[in-house]
Each structure stands twice: as C-alpha cells, then as structure tokens.
C-alpha cells in the first residue's frame, strides 16, 4: 500500500516533468556545448568531439568512471572469492 502511493506520486511528478520540458529537439540554452563543438578540434586535436569531451573536458569524470568499474570488479572478486 505504502509502495503504491510512492509509485503513484512518482508517476505524477515525472509526467509533469516531461510536460514542463522544452519541446523535443529545440534546445533552450547551448553555451557550453557550442563552445565545445567549436573549440574541441583546436584544443585537443581530436576529430571526435564526444571523445574529446569524455577524455579531455570531462576527463576527470572518466577517471571516476574507470574507478567505479575497478571498484565493482574488485568487489565482485571479493564477494565471490574462495575460502580455502
């Protein structure tokens, strides 16, 4: 019962979110992305803008992401380790 109420509240909130958002495909603000598209080739020398975001502009996030993967795999090895 409690769960059903939580679920319905969430559904209403989320659909309201979709209703409030900008129309699909018409972006309101794009200062950060336009800067990146225009300057990525010049600053990082890579043709693939997404890769230059992943490894250069937001390279620190990728380090975090690699850490998450490392953590989870170390965790899985710990949980499933043999005990003999």
């Amino acid at each position: 019962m409690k769960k059903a109420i939580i679920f319905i509240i969430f559904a209403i909130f989320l659909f309201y979110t979709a209703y409030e958002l900008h129309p699909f495909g018409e972006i309101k603000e794009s200062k950060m992305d336009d800067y990146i598209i225009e300057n990525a080739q010049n600053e990082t020398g890579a043709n693939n803008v997404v890769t230059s975001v992943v490894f250069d502009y937001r390279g620190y996030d990728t380090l975090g992401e690699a850490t998450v993967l490392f953590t989870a795999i170390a965790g899985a090895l710990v949980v499933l380790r043999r005990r003999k």
Partner: protein
Amino acid sequence: MKEERMSIIVTTIANLLFPFIIIFSFYVIMHGHLTPGGGFQGGAIGASAIVMLIVAYGAREIRKKVGEENLSIFESIGGLIFVIVGILGFIMASTFLYNFLVGSELFGKIPPLGSNPGYLNTGGILPLLNIAVGMKVIGGLASVVLVMALFRGDKE
C-alpha cells in the same frame, strides 16, 4: 565432473574468430578519437572475445591458462596508466589531466579544422587514455565473467 568443453566445431570456430575480434577491438580503441567508439567500447569487444573462449572451452581451462588474478592485475595496470598520465599533466605542465601532448611529437598533430578524413597521430593524451581504459575494461569484464562462471564449480 561434467565436461565443460564444447564440441570441436565450436572450439575451432572460436580459435579462428579470436584474433579477428581482438584486432577489431584494437581498431576501435585506437580510432576512438576519430570515429565513434573508444576505450570502453573497444574494451567490451575485447572482453567478449575472452568470454567467447570461456563459453567454448569452459571456465576451468581458461582459468588454468589465464587466471582471474592476472586479468585483474592487467586491469590495475590500465588504471595506473590513466592516473600517471593525469599526474604527469601537472608535473610536466599545469594541471591534473592537462592535455600536455598537444603540439608534441607523439599524437601531437593538430588536424585541419573542420571536416577532414582523420589522422591517427592526433589527439594528445586522448589515445593514451583510450588504451588505458581499454586495458581496464578488457581485464575487468573478462575477470568478472570468469569468476561468475567459475563460481558454480566452487560448491562441490
């Protein structure tokens, strides 16, 4: 103990396909800064090659040949390369993860702006980081699948 190894047809095909999948994975990793793809995607392809061998030969045999500990060390080395490249960023130049290779000999060329056919020797530290992440993902995903596949046999 049940035989885990699959029939000779499957193992032969797996042997045949393995180098091609690995080469494709290297291609995706190395061209990450030019075409769609990159370290993670290429690493996942490479890991799938090892998973294919696990399916074909059974987990125990692969464990004898490779060992999940070695794969996990391989993963650690990938992570180390990433952090060391980052730290070199502020030892050689200004900040952590600074793209200090742009303009140098190694991967340092700046491509002509706008549309171009793509040159491999560009991107600064990006290809290095792609390789590091690729190593991490190959080692990590393969070792976790290997451990999960082995687990059934642990109970006895």
